[in-house]
């Protein structure tokens, strides 16, 4: 279980996180909020890419707050995928496995396995440059899942795709994550997407979590007019 407790982050005078707390068990949790509310910063703190000014991150009781990103064994899928332009599809997916020092054969087996999982079986030798948005998104997902992370973090993974593609891929992502049975945090500003991908949602506003539950529960339970309005759009 992941816990992030009372996280504070400020960039100069701008407060990005103002005491945000999250708990994630064996489930897919969506963090939903308007742009600029601190969602991405929270993911970066959990991944270890951003040091919090205050607060603690633990996983299964182990304090990770000062553990650097490369030793956390979490997976993070970036908003614009961040695929390595100098490596082909297969070597992108293999990167995390290479870092673990696995044997070459083990790596290529796992790579083809994960590529199949995301529906790109046999794409190992394609170059990154020629991929469409949807294909790049799948490669990024495969790269994130390949090293079997203990927790998957997804930062608006469908943000740059068109509506139709998003509708299709959101279901796929849920299936893939469930199949991999990895706990996940899925950040989005789209409540429809959040509803369909997650078991539970957290609403974030101005650097804090302001509500938690399924979206239906939040809709009926919340008496905060801001939440009502945000979910009504």
């Amino acid at each position, binding site marked *: 279980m992941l816990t992030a407790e009372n996280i504070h982050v400020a960039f100069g005078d701008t407060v990005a996180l103002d005491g945000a707390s999250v708990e994630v068990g064996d489930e897919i949790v969506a963090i939903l909020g308007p742009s600029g509310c601190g969602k991405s910063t929270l993911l970066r703190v959990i991944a270890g890419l951003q040091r919090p000014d205050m607060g603690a991150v633990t996983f299964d009781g182990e304090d990770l707050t000062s553990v650097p990103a*490369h030793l956390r064994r979490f997976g993070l899928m970036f908003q614009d995928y961040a695929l390595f332009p*100098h490596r082909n599809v297969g070597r992108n997916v293999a990167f995390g496995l290479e870092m673990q020092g696995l044997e070459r054969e083990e790596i290529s087996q796992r790579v083809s396995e994960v590529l199949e999982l995301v529906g790109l079986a046999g794409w190992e030798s394609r170059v990154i440059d020629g991929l469409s948005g949807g294909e790049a998104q799948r490669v990024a997902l495969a790269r994130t899942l390949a090293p079997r992370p203990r927790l998957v973090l997804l930062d608006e993974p469908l943000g740059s795709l068109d509506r139709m593609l998003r509708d299709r891929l959101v279901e796929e992502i849920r299936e893939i994550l469930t199949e991999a049975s990895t706990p996940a945090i899925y950040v989005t500003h789209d409540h429809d997407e959040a509803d369909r991908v997650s078991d539970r949602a957290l609403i974030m506003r101005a650097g804090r979590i302001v509500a938690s539950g399924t979206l239906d529960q939040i809709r009926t339970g919340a008496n905060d007019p801001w939440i009502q309005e945000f979910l009504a759009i």
Partner: protein
Amino acid sequence: MKVGRTLLVGVPVLFLGYFFVYPVASILIEAATGEGGMDFLLTASTGRALWFTLWQAAVSTVLTLLVAFPLTWVVSNFDFAGRRTVMALVTVPFVLPSVVVASAFIALGLRDSVVAILVAHVFFNVSVVVRTVTTVWARLDRSPIDAARTLGASPWTAFRQVTLPLLSPSIAAASSIVFLLCFTSFGIVLLLGGLRLRTIEVEIYQRVTTYLDLPAAGALALVQLVGIVAVMTAYARLQERRTRKLHLRPEAQVLRVARGRERIWMWSIVTATTALTLVPPTVLIARSMRSGAAGWRFLADPGPLAVDPGAAIGNSLQSAAIAALIALAVGVPAAVVVARSAPGWGRWMDVVVMLPLGTSAVTIGLGFLVALDRPIDLRTAPIIVPIAHALVAIPFVVRAVLPTIRSIRTVLRDAAAVLGASPARVWREVDLPLMARAVGVAGGFAAAVSLGEFGATAFIVRPGTVTVPTLIYRLLGRPGAVTFSGAMAMSVILMVLVGGLVMSLDRLRAGELGSF
């Protein structure tokens, strides 16, 4: 990483501190405390040199802009077979060593005249204007121009009211560079100016070699520095005020095929410019072949008095290799620091590594001569030649790799870290492979700079370290038609070495652009 960071900052700072700041500071001290240094500035000959330096630089700049304009217009508007070749061809003069260019104009009979200097400067710098302006013009979104046309502007009015203002920052940038290059021009003026025409650079050289008057030379170098700083400051101000966010598109979307009368203009301009570009190199080759390839026979058997041409070529190649390595070892870490640091720090480093570019080669050579006998006497060590060359090349290395380092997105490093790569591993797996080609190009360019370097080398060269450009200068200074032909043949060799190197780099760079 602490160690890595210290090295990144330490290597450039120590190198530039000892081989640049310390010598230049010594020059200033020499000028201020040496006898008669400052007084020399008030003499008539200083006034003449300063005036000539300024006006020839200004006239050269204007002429270069005028000559470059037609070709710039062509390559910025039209796509045609051989466009890339034409671009590469007009770049060749710029990378040719000044000694080679001067030799070619001497062979053309243009010697001891202002015209020779001006024409050589134009020949040299046309490519600066063509390249700098074309990178913007050939990618400039044409819709504002089309909008102006639909609003009733004639093609000429649209050009004046829309295109020209959008291009003015790049024209100003090109003009400043050309002015600076002509302001600090040394080899051309020394060889083509005769005894009468002297820029400050040449005056510094004469003060040292003829009169051994270091205080006067130091004082002149001070004037030179003030002038350069003034030009660079004006340029920076201009850039700041004029910079606009331009709408740039890929060249393929902007360039069109010429039709009708445009075609005739286009091909006339391309033919005329390339023909003019080819004249000096052709003359060099022809002159070296005259009277039964006398030049080449001379090189094969120079007789007892001359310096060994084979040794000079060996010295030059060795210097080029060492200078390239030093320039990379200093320039790449400096570029990484500039790219990665917080704005304040980074800008400080940026200024430090760019200083040698603004300083003239002659000042660098003079500084070595004045300063580097303490604490250990490096002036007689052979390594001093490649060190001076590296100093001249470092700013080019930084400029060549900086854009690439900046273009490596932080998110790629983050992605690698999350996937389990330690900071050292991130450097090896992400930064290094993405930088490799730019570093290769920068190293090759540094080698080319070293091969052609003359200004700094002229001060520190010794009988054992004579390079090809210094040998050419010595041969040109000797009487006799045969040694003259030998100088021409030597110039051809240097032209082939540098030209070949730069052309192959250009190909490498094209491959890089194509693969990303």
